[in-house]
């Protein structure tokens, strides 16, 4: 018995079966997965791994297991899509952890959600002061949605009755010390202009630049050098 040949054939089968089955399940992103779906993913992956290399058992039962788990997830997805009420029981419902600026201790306790978790997720949303928060909702996928109090909400152009401004994507001209000539041409500039802009910041060679990005709307160039001049980094309070 050639173990290598058997593992190659079984791995090939496991790989393409997993590929077909996961494509069948759709394009839900990892960040959108609930904890249960995350565990399902691990289980399906684990079965595929066993199918591939566990020669002490037949491959067929593992393949059937893979099929059944994928099919069950598929059925659950269909149920959730067709009956939103069932979805509430299958995937849970979002929990309000801050209501009108007040922390809902009981809800947090039920969700096994701690204060450090809450503060961390608020910081991820650039909120460092709890006074700014009107509502915070813990979504099924574990992400926190936050509604700021009106006085802390950013002003929009609409609030100031200003006309809308066009925004376009920035263009990278230098990446990791290498000039991208076609991008430079695309923004209608030449190397002479670029060297002049770099000279203004004391840069003589492209190799000194880690990233250079051009914004066509504001006609600004963002430059980051390999050598950063930060004398004293701020202490980490966490």
């Amino acid at each position, binding site marked *: *018995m*050639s*173990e290598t*040949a*058997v593992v190659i*054939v*079984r791995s090939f*089968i496991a790989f*393409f*079966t997993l590929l*077909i089955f996961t494509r069948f399940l759709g394009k839900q992103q990892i960040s959108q997965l609930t904890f249960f779906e995350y565990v399902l993913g691990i289980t399906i992956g684990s079965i595929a791994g066993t199918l591939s290399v566990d*020669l*002490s*058992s*037949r*491959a*067929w039962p593992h*393949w059937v297991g893979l099929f059944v788990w994928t099919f069950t997830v598929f059925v659950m997805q269909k149920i959730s899509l067709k009956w939103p009420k069932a979805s509430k029981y299958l995937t849970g419902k979002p929990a309000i952890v801050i209501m009108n600026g007040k922390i809902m201790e009981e809800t947090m306790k039920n969700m096994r959600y701690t204060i450090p978790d809450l503060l961390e997720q608020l910081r991820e949303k650039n909120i460092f002061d709890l006074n700014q928060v009107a509502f915070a909702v813990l979504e099924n996928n574990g992400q926190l949605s936050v509604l700021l109090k009106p006085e802390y909400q950013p002003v929009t152009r609409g609030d100031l009755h200003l006309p809308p401004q066009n925004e376009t994507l920035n263009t990278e001209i230098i990446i990791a010390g290498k000039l991208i000539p076609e991008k430079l041409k695309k923004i209608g500039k030449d190397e002479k202009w670029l060297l002049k802009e770099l000279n203004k910041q004391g840069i003589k060679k492209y190799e000194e630049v880690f990233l250079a990005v051009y914004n066509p709307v504001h006609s600004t160039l963002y430059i980051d050098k390999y050598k950063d001049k930060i004398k004293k980094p701020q202490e980490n309070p966490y």
Partner: protein
Amino acid sequence: MGKIIYYTSIIIILSLFVFILNSGDIAKKPWNREDDFEFYAESLHKNLKSENWIEAKKDLISLKKAWKKTVKRIQYSVEKDEINAINVNLARLTGYIENKDKSAGLAEIHEIQEHWHNLNN
């Protein structure tokens, strides 16, 4: 049209996988007399019973050859442990036939036939 080809190829691939993973029963069947494992096992069984040691030795050699050929075909769909068990049985049977030990030899051939039956089941 493209969608039909896409889904047809997926069905064909999955069917092929199902076939390979269940090919043990088909692969167990002999392609010619040389790899007819069941035939030589049965013949060896009879010769052991009648203590016909010369014929038993010949059957054992043929049985080992047949097993070597069959295992190449069935290895993708059966348990490695069952294959190893038959390998061990054949090694022990060689010793018993050399020693002309009828009862141990018969027990061993029965076990081989049982393992053979359990392959892919």
